[in-house]
């Protein structure tokens, strides 16, 4: 049954999902039984607008191999415009991280609505594949051996 090969490395990805669209979309993926790799750890936030650069960096610092932030499509935000402010923050952060050498694909953004269960599963799949291709993320993680035992 366990299809994932034992030796295949399964990344851990922190997904910040807005409660109203993407989290509901993730629920719908479940309700519709769309299968996706078990790599995503969802943190429910009220709105993608709640997600700051700090949170994304914190996830990477904590050892996440990838981060996904997903919100409502523009115009659908339950809080009217949270996702639109977020879009600017994310755009700058994404470019900046790439500028300093954090691989594209580590930090991902998507819009998934409450009715897009299948889309959510596909996004989860896609992000997992991106991260898997990149391998474990170590750039912003302190090396264990530098810590006193």
């Amino acid at each position: 049954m366990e299809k994932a090969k034992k030796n295949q490395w399964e990344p851990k990805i922190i997904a910040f999902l807005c409660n109203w669209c993407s989290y509901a979309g993730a629920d719908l993926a479940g309700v519709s039984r769309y299968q996706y790799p078990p790599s995503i750890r969802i943190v429910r936030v009220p709105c993608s607008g709640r997600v700051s650069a700090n949170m994304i960096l914190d996830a990477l610092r904590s050892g996440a191999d990838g981060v996904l932030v997903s919100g409502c499509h523009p115009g659908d935000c339950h809080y009217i415009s949270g996702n639109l402010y977020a879009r600017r923050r994310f755009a700058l952060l994404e470019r900046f991280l790439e500028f300093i050498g954090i691989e594209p694909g580590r930090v991902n953004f998507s819009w998934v609505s409450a009715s897009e269960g299948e889309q959510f599963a596909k996004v989860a799949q896609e992000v997992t594949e991106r991260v898997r291709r990149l391998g474990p993320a170590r750039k912003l993680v302190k090396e264990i051996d530098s810590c006193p035992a």
Partner: protein
Amino acid sequence: MSSVNEKIAGKIRSIASSLLESGEVAAFLGYTTGSLPGMMQPYVARDAKEAENLSWSSFCVINLANYLPALLKSFEPPRRPNEPPPEGPLPKVGVVATGCWSRNMVVQIQENQIDRNRVVIVGISSRGMVDRRKVQRFVGNREILSMEEQANFLVVKGKDFEEKINRWDVVRDNCKTCTHPDPVIYDELVGGLSGKRDIPDRFRQVDEIEALDIEERWKWFQEEISSCIRCYACRNVCPLCYCPTCFVDDSRPQWVGKSIDRVDTALFHILRAYHCAGRCTDCGSCESVCPMGIRMRLFTKKLQKDVLELYGFEPGLDVETPLPLSTYKVDDPEDFIITNIKKGDKK
């Protein structure tokens, strides 16, 4: 001292002393000559006499806007947090401002850190400030004992040498790429305006890094910050870093460790730069004060480039246009966002 600087300094002094004399301002923030060659110090003149100490040169590398909020505050009567401010106008402060400083003040005005009504801005179009490090590089390891400014040259003298350096060659990087050397807001003007400068390759340094591949960029970033000693001089000198508790000092939440571990240092620089996104006016103070010569301006410059590219915005040009992260457009670019993975295809 060049006659240009002398002229300017003279004008500053006369404006300052008349402002102080008339009581229009309670203090005047400018520069005075420092103890070392090529070192200028921020200086607050509180009366006409002290105004005589004001000076000007190509070495005014610290953004005076950084001191303005505190100086203004010092003239407010002490009150409890919820006590209404006193009736009637509060004392004003005069300040010297070049292009980037003035733009910085605009941002601070937008962010409620400076009350425009309480500052009298004496604007000066900047000719570009000189990077002492570049000068030093010019003369190698030799000790510089004096620096004399001429119109387009610097004459550097040491124990057994004298070098005449083309001034523009040692002007700071940020000044070289500055498009708005003129003050954007001012109440008095010293000297003439030079107009907007068109710099085709103003982001050349950023472009060069962008041209590297991802691992090379990471290597560059790691090397760039490797010498950082977390002294926070860059932060302290930045007029936009005014949080009462900086994230680097905060432990609730603790976004960044306090060590000089490469990860902590990296996060410090990433977040510091990111906090300046859409706000930084590229005054260069941070680099100027860095004891380790870290070019952290590259980080803010990258953000500046992207903000311009994505949102057509340059910070500090006016007080009306909202800062880019406090606003949005419905059709802002979003090609980086996964919106639709091909419909209908199921595995």
